[in-house]
């Protein structure tokens, strides 16, 4: 019985790993379409991964063991998160190991080491990106947690399964002003956390403007594959959270793909229609997100569900 549960938990992780590049591919495809381009196939991300995994890698002579362990740490922390999040079912076998806080803090582990790896090779670009990433994250994390807290108070549980279950039980009744405010706040944070326009430009080649790309500038070959893949899994997990927390109906395999697709389209639309913010406007965006969450919280407390 326990074994089957653990097996199911593992299966969920395999599912996330397998699907993550596809979601990335779909977003890229939609963005290409918006740019009037045909764009690469939606499976291009898989080909990229295989290419990276086959390649030799170049490592900086300045790199210490921090640089070498970071890809491993990114991968294992994101996979561990994958074990805690309800994906295609409400219950998560390993969900007892951690709640929403653990999810956020495991992402923080990932970021912590990526930022260190950015500093490790001694180039100004890595340091620049680390510094910016930590600035954005410092503001995004409270915004994310506050929106999760508001949901937790709605659902009476901070456990992700519990939250999803409760919200699913509430059905359509869940749609309230506070819920919608939290949704908007959450989307803003997800944009920041996944390094998307208007916060970061994932397709830029300009080192001076990079955030996420800058930190992994020194990575190549197999390590790069791990870093990219972890980032995509993280993205999919955040999408999954969005899908399951804000559309907590029909949580099963059949409805999962369309929900994720809708989110992918939403993200691609946002990315295509706004310019990247000036670096010191990003805090404003995240402040808005925080403010929305606070508003949601107050609405929730005063008005109830």
């Amino acid at each position: 019985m326990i074994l089957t549960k653990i097996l199911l938990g593992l299966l969920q992780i395999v599912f996330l790993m397998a699907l993550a590049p596809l979601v990335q591919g779909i977003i890229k495809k939609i963005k290409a379409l918006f740019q009037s381009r045909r764009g690469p196939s939606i499976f291009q991300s898989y080909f990229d991964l295989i290419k990276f995994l086959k390649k030799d890698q170049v490592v900086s002579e300045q790199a210490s063991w921090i640089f070498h362990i970071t890809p491993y740490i990114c991968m294992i922390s994101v996979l561990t998160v994958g074990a805690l999040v309800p994906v295609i079912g409400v219950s998560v076998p390993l969900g007892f190991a951690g709640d929403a806080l653990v999810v956020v803090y495991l992402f923080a582990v990932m970021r912590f080491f990526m930022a260190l790896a950015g500093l490790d090779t001694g180039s100004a670009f890595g340091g620049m990106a680390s510094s910016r990433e930590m600035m954005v994250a410092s503001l995004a994390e409270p915004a994310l947690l506050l929106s999760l807290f508001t949901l937790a108070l709605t659902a009476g549980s901070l456990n992700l399964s519990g939250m999803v279950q409760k919200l699913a039980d509430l059905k359509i009744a869940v749609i309230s002003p506070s819920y919608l405010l939290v949704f908007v706040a959450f989307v803003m944070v997800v944009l920041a956390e996944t390094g998307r326009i208007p916060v970061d430009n994932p397709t830029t080649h300009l080192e001076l403007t990079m955030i996420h790309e800058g930190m992994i500038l020194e990575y190549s070959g197999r390590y790069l594959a791990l870093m990219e893949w972890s980032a995509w899994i993280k993205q999919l997990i955040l999408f999954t959270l969005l899908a399951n927390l804000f559309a907590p109906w029909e949580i099963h395999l059949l409805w999962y793909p369309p929900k994720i697709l809708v989110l992918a389209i939403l993200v691609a639309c946002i990315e295509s229609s706004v310019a990247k913010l000036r670096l010191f406007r990003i805090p404003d965006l995240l402040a808005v997100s925080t403010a929305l969450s606070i508003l949601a919280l107050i609405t929730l407390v005063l008005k109830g569900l």
Partner: protein
Amino acid sequence: MTDTYFNELTTQFSYAFLDSETPVPDELYITVKPEACVGICRYLYEKCGASLVSMVGSDERPLNGGFRLYYFFSLPGHGSSVPQGSRSFVNLQMKVDERHPEFTSITPYMPAAHWYEREIQDLLGLKPVGHPDPRRLVLHENWPKGFYPLRKDFDYKTQPPRTSEDFEMKRVEGEGVFEIPVGPVHAGIIEPGHFRFSSVGEKILNLEARLFYKHKGTEKLAEILPFTKGLFLAERICGVCSFSHATSYCQALEKIANIQIPERAHYLRTIFLELERLYNHVGDVGNICAGTGLLVGNAQGMLLKEKLMELNEAITGNRYLRGMNTVGGLRRDLSEEKRILILSTLRQIQKEFKALIDVIMFLSTQRDRLETTGILSQQVARDLGVVGVAARASGLDSDLRRDHPYAAYDKVSFKVPLRTEGDVSARVWIRIEEVFESIRIIEQLLDTLPSGDIRVEVKEIPPYKYALGYTESPRGANIHWIMTAPDSRLYRYKIRSASYVNWPAVPLVVPGNIVPDFPLINKSFNLCYSCTDL
């Protein structure tokens, strides 16, 4: 017109004047005594409001036993109210003795001269005495000292030994200050240039740019080519101002050979010059969107640029309008159906470009990125002799097409857009307005296109004559100066591109901005490395 200034000058500096001539209309050449040169330059610059447009060093030892320096000034009318054609060029020339290869620097008074003087030092070995920053410019540390490629006794095939020395960058002191090196190898397809930022975190304290990584020896090479082949070299000084450079070259030689090219050729040249401006400006506006991460805007801009380049291809056979110009006119004519093709394409472009501008330039996130970013003050622009879009965005009302009309620009009416903010947004808006002006110019020209020949055959050109050829390229004034040699060859070919004068302004604009805004600022100038690094 020139006379008034000339009279003033002669009364002031009569003791220093050796000779004067007007080989071609609107160009006055005055030979002065070396010791008085700085004084006259300052007089022209400070009292007459002239601006330094070029400075040439030439090795004329085989001719008269010395080096010669030429200072080119553009004399202003007063404001744009002065009738067209009222401005003219004044050239001071002085001899530099071979035994004392040095001259007094005018940079302390006219910052615009600082690159010219350093370049002369590198290429001709004449030392600018009193230059505030006499470091190497054109030739880098891997080039040995004592080899001066523009001297006549330097064979163009010489391969000097490689050396290595350290180049000293300016060091900003203070705890926590560090340097960000960007380039010369960039991640994208960008030409080589090294930018050294000194900063504490995001705010830039100082920027030093180092260019000239790929000195091509264009000017030296031009001296060994017959003028007919030199044209193709001029066409390839840069990828995107091809037609402007070729036109400058042809115009200088046509002046020297003293020939009048057919009216139709003037009209067609003007049309092609404006087509060149069009695709550049449309592309630049799209490219700004790449800098702000507005991907759709970038894609749409690229799309329009591609349409314009396909138009170029269809009417001239080359996307960069190459192979059209020749000394004496044009090599290929424009058929009636191509004339109609241009008109219909431009009408479509005009509509679509307007629609695009309405969408991207009023997006709040986009405007926030562009406005107040990278401000070039009018004073700095004036001091450095900044030209083109950058000058007009900073309130300097200068445009060669209006101020020194050439080709058929005196036949059309157009507006020179002017803004005073000097920020990225202003530069973009200048480009946008110029796009519509260009379309208007082309339409006017196509409507009144005279018929007739397009070319006069030029077989040979007289030796030891000189003249300026100039065009207002999409980036600003390209000023070529040619001195001919026997055998229809060139004795000295000095190319002063718009990018060359605008580059020194970029590092002055950047401090105070944040690091991630630099690419945007740089894009808004959109300067060419190839034009600079000849």
